[in-house]
């Protein structure tokens, strides 16, 4: 069995109760923090652990913290990004719903390291029932002296609140999230300045993903070295992979980074193989934004080496033959799946979710959806395929935020790897999978 850091206690009954969490050693990292670490030492420890942002971008967490502008006397903010909305991703919900105190403990650790007095958990509005679980846990943490004035008799005080979104994928982009938290439309900001300098209310702010923050208690309890000893050279620690689609056992799995993809898909410890004994056709390995790969390239790299669930192995081959770890949203498709229709659902998603600020994304996502709908309904023409590639190319890299890239990559990669299927769809003027 693989080592569990995030999900070690996830099956314990009533884990959402403070006392249950506490009896399992919960909040000892906060006690250790006060005893052994100054805020700067805590940041150093997180840097040493090699923890990278688990929301999708994979940026080193300690490094992100060290960018926080400490020269100003403005207040600082720490914000948890719980806007989990990337199709295929449902790992943060798992933590928030089943182990909210782990997240709160991580929020206390991060806030202390950053010198923050007020922190927020921004959670997508659809997950209001999870927000209520977290708010109840926050209340318990206050009652037990882990939040509020002079935490556990120390000089450190922290207030923590939850804020719901209201249905907008774009608010997972950190500057859009901050706009939304300020009560505005979720339009991403132009960077620089980065939130570390000009963030919430114009103050220095760090935004981290739920899973990233929930990893902190283990790191402080067990030490950076212990965390860095797990995984591979460039991918330290464990990662939650939320697996869905045509597999026998969909769910949230914690893996040690570096696990072979083949083992993840076929072993009974994880996905348990493809449904009905069908053949694997394709995988979107890191949430819908990352390039799709056909079976042969997700199981083995173009060089013929086994593909591993790690940042560097999934990136091997670049976008020609590789992909990205992203958020860990692992979408598996068997050989009954129509690639045109599959792609159409994502194109519609990005069109719906584009905030509309940048013309290439606002217009391009709509064009891509329309063209794909045309092909799907049997009215496409051969030149539509190159037109899609052309549009994707001109959306990518030409927008304020990465939503443009996120909308372009699925289109470009689906055509790169499954072009014949698009051609066949156009030729037959119908789908051979749904008849």
């Amino acid at each position, binding site marked *: 069995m693989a080592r569990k850091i995030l999900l070690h206690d996830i099956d314990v009954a009533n884990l959402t109760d403070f006392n249950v969490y506490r009896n399992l050693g919960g909040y000892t990292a906060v006690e250790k923090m006060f005893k052994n670490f100054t805020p700067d030492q805590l940041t150093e420890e997180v840097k040493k652990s090699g923890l990278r942002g688990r929301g999708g971008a994979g940026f080193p967490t300690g490094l992100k913290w060290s960018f926080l502008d400490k020269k100003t006397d403005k*207040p600082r903010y720490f914000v948890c990004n719980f806007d*989990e*909305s*990337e*199709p*295929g*991703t*449902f790992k*943060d*919900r798992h933590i928030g719903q089943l182990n909210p105190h782990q997240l709160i403990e991580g929020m206390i650790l991060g806030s202390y390291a950053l010198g923050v007095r*007020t922190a*927020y958990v921004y959670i*997508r*509005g*659809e*997950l*209001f*029932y999870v927000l*209520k679980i977290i708010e109840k846990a926050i209340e318990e943490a206050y009652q037990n002296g882990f939040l509020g004035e002079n935490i556990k008799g120390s000089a450190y005080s922290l*207030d923590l*609140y939850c*804020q*719901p*979104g*209201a*249905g*907008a*994928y774009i608010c997972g982009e950190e500057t859009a999230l901050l706009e*939304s*938290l*300020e*009560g*505005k*439309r*979720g339009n991403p900001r132009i960077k620089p300045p980065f939130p570390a300098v000009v963030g919430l*209310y114009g103050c220095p702010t760090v935004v981290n993903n739920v899973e990233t923050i929930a990893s902190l208690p283990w790191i402080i309890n067990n030490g950076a070295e212990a965390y860095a000893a797990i995984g591979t050279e460039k991918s330290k620690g464990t990662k939650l992979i*939320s*697996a*869905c*689609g*045509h597999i026998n056992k*969909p*769910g*949230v799995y914690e893996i040690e980074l570096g696990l072979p993809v083949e083992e993840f898909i076929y072993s009974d410890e994880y996905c348990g193989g493809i449904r009905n004994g069908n053949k694997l056709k394709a995988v*979107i390995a890191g949430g*819908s934004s990352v390039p799709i790969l056909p079976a042969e390239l997700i199981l083995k790299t173009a060089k013929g080496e086994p593909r591993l669930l790690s940042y560097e192995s999934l990136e091997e081959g670049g976008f020609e033959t590789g992909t990205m770890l992203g958020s860990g*949203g692992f*979408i598996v*498709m068997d050989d009954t*799946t129509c690639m045109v*229709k*599959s792609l159409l*659902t*994502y194109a*519609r*998603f990005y069109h*719906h*979710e584009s*905030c509309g600020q940048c013309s290439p994304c606002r217009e391009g996502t709509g064009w891509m959806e329309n063209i794909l709908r045309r092909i799907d309904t049997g009215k496409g023409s051969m030149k539509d395929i190159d037109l899609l590639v052309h549009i994707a190319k001109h959306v990518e890299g030409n927008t304020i935020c990465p939503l443009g890239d996120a909308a372009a990559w699925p289109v470009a990669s689906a055509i790169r790897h499954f072009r014949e299927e698009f051609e066949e769809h156009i030729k037959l003027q119908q789908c051979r999978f749904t008849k």
Partner: protein
Amino acid sequence: MQEKQNISAFKSETIELVNKIINRYPEGRQKSALLPILHIAQAENNGWLSTGIMDYVALLLNLQPIEVYEVATFYSMFNLEPVGNCVIEVCQTGPCWLKGSDEILAHFEKRLGIKPGETTEDGKFTLKTVECLAACGNAPVIQVGTDYHENLTTEKVDELIEKWKAENKVSHSNPYL
């Protein structure tokens, strides 16, 4: 735009909750409370945001009405037209589609006799399609109010519709309570 309607102010318990939420943000940053307050306002206004209720929220938070309208029109959870008592939101993004969300949606359409975006004549049900609800491991998924219904089949849809009909299901209630 809908006609302005006379709206009664929030109940005193709701005002208490509103003030508690406003206090979570620094002095002068009460605009941050806009999303939570709009969720409450929608729930207390039969599941949708009329111009009247938005103007009232603007008043509560000391904002210009346009600051409320521009936010309400941005977020997909806010309904800007009247809705039925029970709003059914069917996820249709890739992972749900792989597990048969098309059939689930078609079944709702058939059973209720309406298309997405429509409300039944008796005002009981509104059908909506939504994008990824972050529950892909239990696809196909729908949301009704704050409840998720997962691993749906057409049989389960039938059961749910019968249950909602029997209890006169109202999906909008103050999500904080």
